[in-house]
């Protein structure tokens, strides 16, 4: 148990966690406001990652440049999906949860198929910023570090948006109580559209960052979905700070199991944590039913 090794794995894990945090924040926004479980979340993330990878392959455009465009495109796409698909979900909340699960289940398969058709099954990533900095005996991969910083900036922007803008307040209000928000004159439909668009946009942004670190193909979306939900389960639904903590834990878990076991087993690590957390600390981490 060499301390340098531990240190290295810790650093790698935390940096990784930062990116999962961004992905999970996007999911948190959607789940928190709309009670919609977006099973296709991972596919949105991976879709953006593949897109960034192809742009880099063809025209050497690095993902950081692609990021704002991917965000905008996903934002628009998300708004459209909400307006034309999700809006048709039944009013009754219990049925809506079932329907949204099945709906996004269908969407996720659709996207996997589309992804395979467009990008083929090849694994891709973006080999940009391949160097590393040395911090003592620990090497910090440049790409992970920059991705982490970007992710943190975006997360911070999100936090500012939620706290200080009117739209952000409406969003938080709606996630706490729809009736209350309506009573305060909040246009709940607009907020829901905004929430879904924002969540999808954030997913795409995190996908661009993810492409720098992982090799992905259209079928790896499920892992991202599970890991993001694991983060939310650990950190608590609607608890944005908790998401950061949860993401750190997940990042560390992936990093350590990836080294001591294998990359494959590391994929299962978030899931195991997810289940343990849900079963051992059910109150507070199970997610609220709508009031």
């Amino acid at each position, binding site marked *: 148990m060499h301390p340098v090794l531990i240190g290295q794995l810790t650093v790698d894990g935390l940096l990784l966690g930062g990116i999962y945090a961004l992905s999970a924040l996007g999911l948190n926004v959607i789940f928190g406001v709309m009670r919609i479980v977006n099973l296709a979340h991972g596919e949105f993330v991976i879709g953006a990652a593949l897109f960034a990878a192809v742009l880099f392959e063809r025209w050497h455009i690095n993902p950081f440049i692609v990021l704002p465009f991917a965000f905008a495109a996903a934002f628009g796409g998300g708004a459209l999906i909400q307006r034309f698909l999700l809006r048709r979900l039944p009013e009754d909340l219990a049925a809506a949860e079932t329907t949204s699960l099945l709906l996004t289940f269908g969407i996720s398969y*659709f996207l996997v198929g589309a992804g395979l058709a467009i990008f083929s099954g090849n694994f891709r990533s973006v080999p940009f910023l391949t160097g590393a900095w040395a911090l003592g005996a620990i090497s910090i991969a440049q790409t992970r570090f920059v991705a982490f910083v970007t992710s943190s900036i975006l997360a911070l922007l999100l936090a500012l948006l939620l706290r200080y803008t009117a739209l952000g307040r409406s969003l938080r209000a709606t996630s706490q109580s729809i009736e209350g928000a309506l009573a305060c004159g909040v246009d709940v439909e607009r907020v829901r559209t905004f929430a879904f668009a924002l969540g999808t946009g954030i997913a795409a942004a995190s996908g661009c960052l993810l492409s720098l670190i992982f090799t992905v193909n259209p079928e790896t979306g499920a892992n991202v979905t599970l890991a993001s939900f694991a983060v939310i389960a650990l950190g608590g639904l609607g608890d944005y700070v908790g998401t950061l903590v949860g993401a750190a834990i997940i990042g560390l878990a992936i990093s350590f199991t990836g080294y001591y076991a294998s990359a494959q087993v590391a994929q299962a690590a978030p899931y195991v944590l997810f289940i343990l957390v849900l079963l051992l600390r059910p109150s507070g981490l199970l997610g609220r039913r709508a009031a």
Partner: protein
Amino acid sequence: MKRATVAGFVLVVAALALIPPFASGYVRSLLYITVLDVALAYAWNVISGYAGYLSFGQVTFFGLGAYTTALVVIHGHVAWWEGALLGGALSALLAVPLGYLMLRLRGAYFALGMLGLAQTFQVIANASGFSGGGSGLFLPPGSNTLAVYYWTLAIAVLTFVATVFIDRSAFGLRLQALREDEQVASTLGVDVTTAKVMAFVISAIVPGLLGGGYAWYLTYIEPVSAFATRFDLQAVAMTILGGIGTVWGPLIGGVLMSQVSETLAAQFPQTYLMIFGGLVVVLLLFLPRGIVPAVSAALARRRARA
């Protein structure tokens, strides 16, 4: 159930039983996969349709059954159907504690939990040498695909009959009550925990038994195909099309879909995913309760007017 319906059903089963010995290999394999999918759909329908706990990972038990059978056939020199029975038994045994644990989770988390469970089992199968790792396991040759077909058909019929019983029993009413509102159901005297665990076990044992057959049918299994997502997707899509939580839903959905899905899946796998994923979406938006309830509602309106 009306006599005509029972008679019709018996006729269909008889046809399904008598065709294969005289049919081409293509027809046989189409029939096999159709019957398999319908059986899996019925099993899914119990936990997801009647009890309302959507599971996207029942393939966990299918793969468990497949691997169990493969392993005992290879190492234990037992007959394949004994292996399949063992697979079913193991699935049931696993489903009890698993059910108690997982069914405490609310809808979304239960669905995700089952999804992750399937992924984890796949990872385990892939990583452990015992199960042959990524290259999988080869079963001894001499497989009798016809025998597997009859095994699958028998289980499909039994699962259908079980569904009919559930639909008309106190157990079925309890499941549906807890599906609608679990807390209210419990304050009305329903033992929700026992009921939903029972539903979960039923939904696990069937895939377990069928997976065993599948292993023998192919005489080769490996992690990706044993825990293939297509099994869950098919079960979900068929049941939603036909009518989730109904007696005839999975059958109608299965019959309507099977030809299309098999041809598509074999030849254009990406298009298959897109079409079936898209189909689930379209169905949920425009025909959420499926064909069977829509048809019976239309018939009821006709009768009311007459």
